[in-house]
């Protein structure tokens, strides 16, 4: 058994991861752009703020002590270890202090070309005293350096994100793939004849588990039906061997024997053939009921009316066998069901009660409610069946020693069971009752639709 291994990147998991990675990349790009713009603006604002503070100090100095104090402030500022700041004090067109040449006396925020390429100067110009122009600014390379660092960080983030997405996608796909492969393997195993193969369930309750559960349940159902079919064929083969052999022997004897017994032998042969056909029909009926198709034909059924119908049907038979047949209804109930099949179910139970008990036995058909569920019971006060035999009673073709002389083929209760199952009902031997009783407990009726 081999099936082409799906390539990793052809999997749904990988496709989803790729989409996710793309979305991630786009969001990193958008976020980076915004961060970059905000950072630049903040840094520029900061430079301008410092410059304004410098100019304010110079203005203060001039007011209190004159031009020399302004020069003093500039000297102090320039003496600071960070040499990226630029200052200028200028009267008319002559630079008087600072580290910049004389320039146009622009006030407010001023951007100057730097001394080296890529190094612009951003600052503020103002007149600190009458005719005395001053400028304070900074090299913008620090802004650019910050921006550069941010871009590098974002780039790493981007690469890491994509890597994680790809790796994660591959891992997810691989685990997904491993599980879908397991499913496919189980399916192939079943196709190859291993009906016991099932899809492994991890127990995490995720969507794949739920799918696996649903498929496994379906497989169980199919396996159950197949097992049924297999059992039916086995049973038929097994149970038919005896009557068919007897039929054959009888015919053979008739062929060789004298003429007088001929008609009798043919009569017996036809009877035996009918018996074989009846067994066939009963088994096929069970298989049909277990197939569940008849649920489509369910209709509303009044159980009390059904019991009265059954009583009227069987009372003459029961009386002829010196049994009594009574109906006891404590609470009426309506169910959804198949009338013909429920008649068969009840007939099987009633016929058992009539055929397998001594004369004088009382049979009661009762309808009650147990926990809101309609319960039909067919009970008799006969000798009963030992508790250890109860479970066997519902087995196909099981016949009690005592009942082998009665007509039937051991399919009555299996048929009843199949019919009960079809109706979602439970069928049980009533425990502890005197005599013998079988109860059919129907499901609670759903609120009327």
């Amino acid at each position, binding site marked *: 058994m081999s099936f082409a291994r799906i390539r990793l990147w052809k999997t749904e998991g990988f496709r989803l991861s790729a989409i996710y990675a793309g979305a991630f990349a786009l969001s990193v790009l958008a976020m980076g752009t915004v961060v970059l713009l905000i950072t630049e603006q903040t840094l520029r604002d900061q430079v301008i703020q410092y410059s304004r503070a410098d100019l304010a100090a110079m203005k203060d100095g001039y007011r209190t002590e004159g031009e020399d104090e302004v020069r003093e402030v500039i000297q102090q500022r320039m003496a600071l270890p960070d040499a990226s700041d630029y200052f200028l004090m200028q009267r008319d067109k002559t630079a008087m202090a600072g580290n910049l040449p004389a320039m146009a006396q622009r006030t407010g925020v001023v951007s100057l070309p730097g001394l080296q390429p890529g190094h612009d100067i951003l600052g503020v110009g103002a007149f600190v005293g009458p005719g005395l122009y001053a400028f304070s600014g900074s090299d913008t390379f620090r802004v650019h350096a910050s921006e550069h660092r941010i871009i590098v960080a974002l780039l790493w983030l981007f690469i890491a994100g994509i890597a994680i997405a790809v790796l994660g996608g591959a891992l997810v796909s691989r685990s997904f793939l491993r599980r879908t492969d397991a499913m496919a393997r189980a399916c192939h195993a079943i196709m190859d004849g291993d009906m016991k193969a099932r899809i492994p369930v991890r127990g995490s309750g995720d969507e794949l588990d739920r799918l696996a559960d649903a498929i496994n349940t379906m497989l169980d159902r199919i396996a159950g039906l197949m097992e049924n079919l297999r059992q039916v064929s086995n049973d038929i083969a097994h149970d038919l061997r005896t009557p068919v052999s007897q039929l054959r022997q009888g015919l053979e004897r008739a062929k060789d024997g004298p003429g007088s017994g001929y008609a009798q032998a043919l009569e017996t042969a036809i009877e035996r053939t009918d018996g074989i056909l009846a067994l066939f029909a009963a088994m096929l009926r069970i298989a049909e009921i277990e197939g569940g198709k008849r649920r489509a034909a369910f209709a509303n059924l009044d159980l009390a009316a059904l019991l009265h119908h059954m009583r*009227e*049907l069987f009372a003459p*038979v029961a009386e*002829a*066998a010196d049994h009594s047949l009574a109906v006891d209804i404590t609470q009426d109930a309506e169910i959804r069901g198949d009338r013909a*099949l429920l008649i068969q179910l009840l*007939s099987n139970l009633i016929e058992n009660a009539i*055929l397998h008990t001594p004369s004088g036995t009382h049979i009661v058909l009762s309808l009650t409610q147990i926990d809101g569920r309609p319960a039909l019971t067919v009970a008799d006060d006969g000798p009963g069946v030992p508790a250890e035999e109860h479970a066997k009673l519902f087995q196909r073709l099981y016949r009690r020693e005592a009942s082998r002389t009665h007509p*039937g083929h051991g399919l009555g209760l299996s048929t009843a069971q199949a019919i009960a199952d079809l109706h979602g009902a439970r069928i049980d031997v009533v425990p502890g009752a005197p005599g013998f009783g079988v109860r059919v407990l129907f499901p609670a009726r759903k609120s009327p639709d």
Partner: protein
Amino acid sequence: MKLLLIEDDPETAGHIVHALAGHGHAVESVDNGTDGLARARCGDHAALIVDRMLPGMDGLSLVRQLRAEGHQTPVLFLTTMSGLDDRVEGLEGGADDYLVKPFAFAELLARVNAITRRADGAEPTRLRLADLEIDLIRRTATRDGKAIELQPQEFRLLEFLLRNAGRVVTRTMLLENVWDLHFDPRTNIVETHLSRLRSKVDRGFGTELIHTLRGVGYVLRAD
């Protein structure tokens, strides 16, 4: 009666034709659905006996087609499928009765006779045989002017016998039509009910109306 048999298995067909001919019926036999439909359309048969599985056109489609075209010739379905569904489907498709193969020949004969009667006109409100009469509306029965007390199922049994008066009804026909039992019961339901009905309908009156035909069924007749 002139009958049309549509059956693809030559052995079964031969057996049926031979047996029906022995009872005075003229049987025309066709071995596929297409020819069967063409022959059935002539409409000069008293009844059709149609196998469910046929080459060309299956039996169910054939009957549906015939009914859709307005042909009312009674149809008896023959089939090896024993399912209740098949029976329901067959009857809903327009068949008048349904018989599962293999069957006793007496069963086939009885059912063919029964369906050919059904073709006649309006639904009566009273059924009568000799001095026995039932009122289908008031659900009452009288014999020789005297009322007979019947339980509902006994009434249905008598009604079925009267509707088929003079014709043989088999045990299976009674089980299906009177009690809706579509399986073979292990107790002698039919015999017991018939004997009770007989005690009400026949006992104390001059002639017996209900006759038992051993191994075949029952017949209601006056002579």
